[in-house]
C-alpha cells in the first residue's frame, strides 16, 4: 500500500474526530468520578441513548438541531433519574455499590433499546451541507469530521471558562476537593451531584448523536466507547479534565494511525498507549495535579 503524507493527514483528522467523541464521553465520566466518586458504567449506555433519541427525533422532525437537543435532553433526564432515584441511596457505601448499580442500569438501557428499536441498528445521514470535504490547501478533508473536532474544542473552551470563571465552576472545583465545606457554607451538595450526573450524561448523549452519522447506532454502540473513555480517564489521570482532553485526542489519533499502518493492531493500540503512559506516569498524565487543574 502506498502511504502518502496526505493519507496520514486524512487519517489524523479521522483520529481527532474519534478523539472528540472520546473526550466528550470521558469528560462527563471524569466529572462524575471527581465529584461523586462514582465509576459510572452506565456512561456508554447514555451515549447510546443520545444516538437513538437523536435519530428518532430526526425521523419525526427532519431537523438535525432538534436531534441534537433531544439527544442531550433525553440522556440528561435519564442520567438525572438514575442519580436521584437509584445511585443516591448508595452514597457512603464504598465505590463498588454504585459501580455494580450503574452496570445494571446500562444493561437495562441497552435491552430497552433492543426492544424499542430492534437489534439491527439505525443510521442517520448527514445533511447535504455537512457532507463532502473542504480543501485546506495542503489536502482535502472531510467537512463533518473537521466540524466535529472544532465544535468539541469550542465546547471544551466554554466548559473550561465555566469552571474557571463562574460561580457554578467554583462550586464544582470546591466540591471535588471538599464537599463537607460546601455543605457548611450553605450549598446543597446533593443538588450539585444531581446536576453533574445529568450534565455528564447529557454530554455523553451529545457525543452519541454526533458519532451516529459516522458509525450508525446499535444498542451495543456504547460498550466500546465506554472502554475507550475509561482508558482516556485513566491515561489522563482519574478526575482530571485537562487529562481527559489531551488523552482523548491523543488516543483517537493513535488508534487511527495504527489502523493505517498496522490495521491488525488497531484495537491493541489503545492499551499499549495506556500501558506506556502508566509506566512513565503511574497516576496518568495529569493524575497528580488532581481534578480540574
Amino acid at each position, binding site marked *: 500500500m502506498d502511504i502518502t503524507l496526505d493519507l496520514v493527514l486524512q487519517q489524523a483528522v479521522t483520529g481527532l474526530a474519534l478523539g472528540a467523541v472520546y473526550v466528550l464521553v470521558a469528560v462527563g465520566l471524569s466529572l462524575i468520578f471527581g465529584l461523586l466518586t462514582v465509576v459510572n458504567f452506565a456512561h456508554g449506555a447514555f451515549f447510546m441513548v443520545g444516538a437513538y433519541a437523536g435519530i428518532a427525533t430526526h425521523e419525526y422532525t427532519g431537523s438535525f438541531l432538534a436531534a441534537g437537543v433531544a439527544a442531550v435532553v433525553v440522556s440528561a433526564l435519564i442520567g438525572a433519574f438514575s442519580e436521584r432515584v437509584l445511585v443516591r441511596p448508595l452514597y457512603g457505601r464504598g465505590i463498588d455499590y454504585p459501580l455494580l448499580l450503574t452496570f445494571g442500569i446500562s444493561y437495562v438501557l441497552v435491552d430497552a433499546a433492543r426492544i424499542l428499536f430492534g437489534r439491527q441498528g439505525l443510521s442517520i445521514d448527514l445533511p447535504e451541507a455537512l457532507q463532502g470535504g473542504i480543501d485546506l490547501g495542503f489536502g482535502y478533508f472531510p467537512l463533518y469530521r473537521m466540524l466535529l473536532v472544532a465544535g468539541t474544542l469550542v465546547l471544551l473552551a466554554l466548559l473550561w471558562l465555566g469552571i474557571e470563571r463562574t*460561580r457554578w465552576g*467554583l*462550586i464544582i*472545583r*470546591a466540591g471535588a*476537593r*471538599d464537599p*463537607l*465545606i*460546601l*455543605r*457548611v*457554607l*450553605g*450549598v*446543597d*451538595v446533593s443538588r450539585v451531584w444531581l446536576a453533574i450526573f445529568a450534565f455528564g450524561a447529557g454530554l455523553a448523549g451529545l457525543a452519541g448523536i454526533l458519532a451516529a452519522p459516522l458509525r450508525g447506532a446499535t444498542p451495543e454502540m456504547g460498550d466500546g466507547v465506554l472502554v475507550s473513555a475509561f482508558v482516556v480517564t485513566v491515561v489522563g489521570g482519574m478526575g482530571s479534565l485537562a487529562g481527559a482532553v489531551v488523552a482523548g485526542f491523543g488516543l483517537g489519533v493513535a488508534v487511527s494511525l495504527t489502523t493505517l499502518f498496522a490495521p491488525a493492531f488497531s484495537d491493541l493500540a489503545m492499551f499499549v498507549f495506556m500501558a506506556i503512559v502508566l509506566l512513565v506516569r503511574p497516576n496518568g498524565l495529569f493524575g497528580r495535579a*488532581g481534578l*480540574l*487543574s
Partner: protein
Amino acid sequence: MSTVHTVLSAPTAGAVPPVPHTAGGALVIDGLNAWYGRAHVVQDVGFAVAPGEAVALLGRNGAGKTSTLRAIMGLMPRMSGTISYAGCPLHRAPAHARFHRGLAYVPEDRRIVPGLTVRENIRLGLIASRERRDEDTVIADIARTFPRLRERLDQMGTSMSGGEQQMLSIARAVAAGPSLVLLDEPSEGVSPLLVDEMYELFAGMKAAGTTLLLVEQEVERALEIADRVCVLDQGRLVHVTSVDDFRTDAAAQARWCAL
C-alpha cells in the same frame, strides 16, 4: 442591614457600636447525643447560648467538644436530641440549611480548599448566601478587616502559614454575615501574635451582637472573651458556670482542663 465587616472592624472603629445582626436568637440544646459508629461520644448534653453571648466550651482532648459543634452544625453521622436556634428546630435540618439559618462553623482542621486562591476561598463563603451582596465589596471589606489576607488574595490558600489559613477559614465563615459562629480551637498551632489579632476580631464580632460558641484548649484566651463556661468530660456536660467563677476555681480548671 449590617455587614459582618462593619462588625469585625468594630474595635478599631471604636465609638459607635454597629447594628447587631438580623435574626440572632438563643441556641438551645437539649438531650443531645451523638455517635461515631458505636462510640457514644456526646451523651445527653444540654445547654443554651443567649443571643449576643459568648460561651466557651472547654474540656480535655477527646471530651467531645468537636463532636458537639459538629452535631450543632449537622455533621455527625448519627445523633439524637433537640437543637433549636432563634426558636426554630434545627436538629432535622441538613447542614446547608443551618447555614441559611445564620450559623457559621469554623472547623478545627480549617479546611482551606486546595487548588483555590485565597479570594476563591472567601468567595465560597458567599456562594450560597441568599442576599446577593456584591462580592467585590465583601472581599474588599474582608481585606480591610483581615490585613494578612489582603496581600495574599491571589495566592493559593493552602500556601499560607497555619495561622493565616486559620484567618482565612474565619473570614470565609463570616463572609455571609452569620449571627452565630461556632469556633473550634481557632488558636491551635497559631503564633501568639496572630492569636491576639484573632481574638480582637472575636471581640469585635461579639460587640456587634454576634453570638459565639468557642471551643478552646487555651483556657485563658477563651476566658478573655467568654461570658460563661461549659465543661465537657467524656462526652458529658459536667460543669456550667460564669467566667468569673471559673477563673478563680483552680480545682475545676485542674480537674477538667489540665492537659
